[in-house]
């Protein structure tokens, strides 16, 4: 009886989830198919999902329009460097906020959190002036530096590190370990799932960032993919097939990163004990 009820409920869950998963991922399928259609088929009525023939013209066409591989490599370099540095800096800070007490720590932590509330559009210009005064414009460092710290990331990691029992640390101290030793041998291994969750967010926001690269980079050698996408959109406002090809190129890498990191993802978020 309960078994049958359970399997009926499971079936309902399957139906619900499958329906929703299709609804949520369908635009990507449509985008992918659009990238292989020609300019007539892409607006054909009634619409067809599959292209009548698979052609890669759209991709070679956008490749001729901006140096796709160069932009791609720049995006990857900037995103990887930003992610690694952000993970390092935030984990270190979170370690202090969670486990190393000092006077005024709470105030400093609140200061960190308030920076989450201000829209980036308004700090953009002062930040740019700072970078222009320090000659960081049009450099990789200029692209990477503003993203290497995240209050949000620090917050998530602190929540996660707090759940690590103090006894574990104490035991290490008794063995003669220093705070640095404890950081590398106790803290970092235990928050790995949270790090993997955070790495998705960090990579994602760097990979998709548009406004900052727009103003901080002038030479083509340093430009990132979102700038290329915006060029495409500026040039072909309704050539959906070309625009979709550009979208596919920018989507696939981040999708791959996600596939690798998502295994730890939910565990990582659970560990932050958001409450």
């Amino acid at each position, binding site marked *: 009886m309960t078994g049958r009820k359970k399997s009926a409920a499971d079936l309902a869950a399957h139906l619900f989830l499958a329906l929703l*998963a299709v609804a949520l991922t369908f635009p990507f399928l449509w985008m992918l198919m659009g990238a292989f259609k020609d300019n007539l088929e892409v607006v054909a009525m009634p619409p067809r999902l599959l292209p009548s023939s698979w052609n890669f013209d759209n991709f070679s066409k956008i490749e001729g329009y901006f140096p796709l591989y160069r932009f791609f490599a720049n995006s990857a370099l900037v995103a990887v460097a930003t992610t690694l540095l952000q993970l*390092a800096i935030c984990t270190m800070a979170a370690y202090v906020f969670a486990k190393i007490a000092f006077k005024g720590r709470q105030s400093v932590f609140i200061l960190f959190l308030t920076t989450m509330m201000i829209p980036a559009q308004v700090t953009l210009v*002062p930040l740019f*002036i700072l970078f222009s005064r320090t000659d960081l414009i049009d450099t990789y460092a200029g692209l990477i530096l503003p993203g290497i710290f995240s209050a949000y990331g620090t917050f998530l990691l602190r929540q996660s590190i707090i759940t690590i029992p103090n006894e574990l640390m104490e035991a290490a101290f008794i063995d003669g370990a220093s705070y640095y030793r404890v950081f590398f041998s106790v803290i970092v291994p235990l928050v790995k799932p949270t790090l993997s969750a955070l790495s998705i967010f960090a990579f994602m926001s760097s990979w998709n960032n548009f406004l900052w690269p727009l103003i901080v980079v002038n030479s083509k050698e340093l430009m990132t993919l*979102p700038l290329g996408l915006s060029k495409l959109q500026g040039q072909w406002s309704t050539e*959906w097939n070309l625009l979709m090809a550009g979208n596919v190129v920018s*989507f696939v890498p981040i999708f791959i990163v996600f*596939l690798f990191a998502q295994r730890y993802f939910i565990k990582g978020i659970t560990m932050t004990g958001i409450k």
Partner: protein
Amino acid sequence: MVGQRKWSRRTAAIVFLTPALLCLLAFQLLPMVSSILISFTDWDLLTHWTKMNFIGWDNYAQVFREEKSYTAIRNVFVFLLGYLPSIVVLGTLLAVMLNRPIRGVKVYRAAVFVPVITSWVAVSIVWRWLLNGQSGLINYLLSQVGIQGPIWLQDDFWAMIAIILVTLWKDIGFVSIILLAGLQDISEDYYEAAELDGASPWSKLWRITVPLLSPTLYFVVTISLINSFQLFDQVLIMTNGGPAGATSTIVEQVYRNAFQFNKMGFAAAQSWVLLLIIFVSTLVLQQVQRRWVVYDR
């Protein structure tokens, strides 16, 4: 020994915190303080930054005088009204389903998260295509069931609804995964005890799941609230604040005033008013959560 420990604790705190503090100072606090200063000037962004004039509280007075400010606030509240309840209810429902130990649930979990990882720059274009009144897929599908779809993004009534729906599509994965994490924290014992008492699934949801999930729900509501107030990217690309200002939002106006209307000082004042609104709303939320959020288990 203890003194040495204390000393090493202090140096450790300094060593581990310094990189973050330096970044915070340079990339966040310095620009923030500058933007406060700018909000009291007539800076137009065109003149060199050393040549701006201080004009006192004028910009702030103007924010409250301008009709457009109220349009933006009204639009953001319309958005909140449609978005917040839907994302919480749908997100919870989806999280409960994703928490069932059924086969392939991991695939579902990954699938619902896919819209979250993409950029608004990319997906806004996809949606502009899908929502096109004449050649868009959405209206084609509606016409197959006998509904004449609206001209979504060009209609001052439907444009905001379209923005809400598309934002729900993009955010639901994030919200439901966070809520799922909260659900997995709830011990099975509660449900087993309730089952012994013969509780219905409905009463289990209301008496166990929702109360025990309430801390996570509170977090989700706070984050969604802050994001809603900062509504910008999708609006800029999909409707450009139009038609007739129907989707104009606070941050959209900040952007326009700063970079297109030569009113950087005014834009800075607007964003500090926005910050105040966000701050007050989160405080109110915090008061509310004291009443109904259950912390002890």
